[in-house]
């Protein structure tokens, strides 16, 4: 009986407290949203499962927990804390992204720039709420709606906040279809939502090959700290467009990105151990993250309306909402909201332009914040 009691005292049931169960509940919600609601399943399922893994109570010192130096999870987590995984994800994103729509209508790139204002506004909000500048910068980047970028910057500036910031960033990315439509409808009129976009011109192969090189050189000369992210994004895209490196491009957009997504999702999820994650700071981070996301969406929309004062023909201001990265979800939301007003209006292709420029913009913003905080 004593042996049995000893064994019981070593089980997770005996060691768990209510916070572990709250986190396991959150893990279930992530898995449910991913599988049943199809909200970013490739991210939410690994993260959700990681939350379950990370919240099973274990003995400290046995090398089991993610925060113990000699554990397997800790080694895998080094890819997050050392900023290895995010650039590899950008490599894959670059290898699967077609920049044609952006090259055809470069003015839409400005919408991606405008949406990044949300990052800096949230940075101010976080400072006002008492966060340190490094923490505030890491929280602000959630508004970029780009999980890898948020993790990359947080790993560089505020390692302790990686868990809450990564979970907040990916949660809001998954919740784009819920968060963005009300803001989009609030800030645009029906007449504006009905605007049709002109057919984009055909883009030559040479333009597509030159673009990643020009983008890398220009953006990284302006913000050198963006090299790890933009360098890999542009490299991946060059592999894709060069055609002669198709094998490498295929590997980058399948095997590499899938492997890294699994490792990143699982370890980020596992890093949300209840004792580390369930703190008042985390709650504030979630609130600020949501605000950041909303402000970024609003900035994109309002800037699109501002551009319409000068542009002929006008652009559909809904495209501004796609300026937050969240590729391709926010572009899809633009398409859905646009089609609610006019089912024959196809905005998806056009929304991809600000969407992709949002990725570039958030990487530049991360580089800028990093260089300011160094």
């Amino acid at each position: 009986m004593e042996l049995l009691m000893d064994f019981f005292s070593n089980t997770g049931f005996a060691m768990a407290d209510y916070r572990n169960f709250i986190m396991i509940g959150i893990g279930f919600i992530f898995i449910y949203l991913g599988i049943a609601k199809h909200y970013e399943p490739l991210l939410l399922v690994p993260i959700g499962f990681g939350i379950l893994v990370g919240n099973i109570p274990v003995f400290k010192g046995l090398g089991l927990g993610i925060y113990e130096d000699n554990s397997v999870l800790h080694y895998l987590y080094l890819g997050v804390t050392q900023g290895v995984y995010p650039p590899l994800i950008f490599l894959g994103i670059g290898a699967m992204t077609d920049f044609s729509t952006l090259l055809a209508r470069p003015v839409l790139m400005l919408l991606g720039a405008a949406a990044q204002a949300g990052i800096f506004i949230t940075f101010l909000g976080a400072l006002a709420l008492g966060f340190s500048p490094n923490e505030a910068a890491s929280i602000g980047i959630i508004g970029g709606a780009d999980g890898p970028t948020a993790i990359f910057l947080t790993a560089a500036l505020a390692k302790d906040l990686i868990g809450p910031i990564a979970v907040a960033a990916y949660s809001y990315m998954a919740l784009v279809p819920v968060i963005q439509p009300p803001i989009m409808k609030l800030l645009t009129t029906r007449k504006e939502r009905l605007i049709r976009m002109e057919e984009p011109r055909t883009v030559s192969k040479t333009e597509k090959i030159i673009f990643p090189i020009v983008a890398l050189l220009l953006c990284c000369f302006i913000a050198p700290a963006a090299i790890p992210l933009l360098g890999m994004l542009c490299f991946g895209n060059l592999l894709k467009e060069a055609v002669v490196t198709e094998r490498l491009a295929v590997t980058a957009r399948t095997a590499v990105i899938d492997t890294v997504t699994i490792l990143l999702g699982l370890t980020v999820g596992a890093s949300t151990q209840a004792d580390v994650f369930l703190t008042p700071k985390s709650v504030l981070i979630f609130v600020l993250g949501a605000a950041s996301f909303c402000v970024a969406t609003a900035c994109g929309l309002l800037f699109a309306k501002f551009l319409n004062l000068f542009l002929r023909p006008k652009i559909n201001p809904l495209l501004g909402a796609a300026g937050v990265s969240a590729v391709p979800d926010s572009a899809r939301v633009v398409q859905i909201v646009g089609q609610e007003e006019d089912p024959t209006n196809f905005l998806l292709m056009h929304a991809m332009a600000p969407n992709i420029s949002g990725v570039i913009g958030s990487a530049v913003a991360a580089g800028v914040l990093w260089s300011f905080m160094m």
Partner: protein
Amino acid sequence: MNGLEAIAFYNGWKISATGICIVFTALCTLSFIISQLHKGLSIWEKREEYIKKAGKLFSRPKKTVLHRKIKVSESFNESARQFHVLTQSMKDPFSLPKLIMLAKKIDLGRPHSTVNDLLSARLIVPDGKGLYYWDNDVYTTILEKE
């Protein structure tokens, strides 16, 4: 430290304003470059055509200096003088049919044959674009020999 005081203490306003400006500058410049990229590429692809056009614009037709002896008769010199006057009434370069028409109009004898002689003597020289000009150097040489 909280609120506006914290923002001011950590240079929040400056960081935000500068950050937004840098991101905008980067993307605006990139946007401008890619908006001009296809124009630059189309010029590059048609570079030979443009080089030819530019070459024609800046180079005057080569005037051939005659080193050979031009055998001319008295009547030819007279015809040359008459046609010289005619070409002076037209702007360089001129059209050959127009010149012949003018010659016919004022009853110059055998205009076709004379023009042919003037062409052979290189007094009338093609400019390479279907028109002709009068070569004053050759004309002066002929007059000096007279």
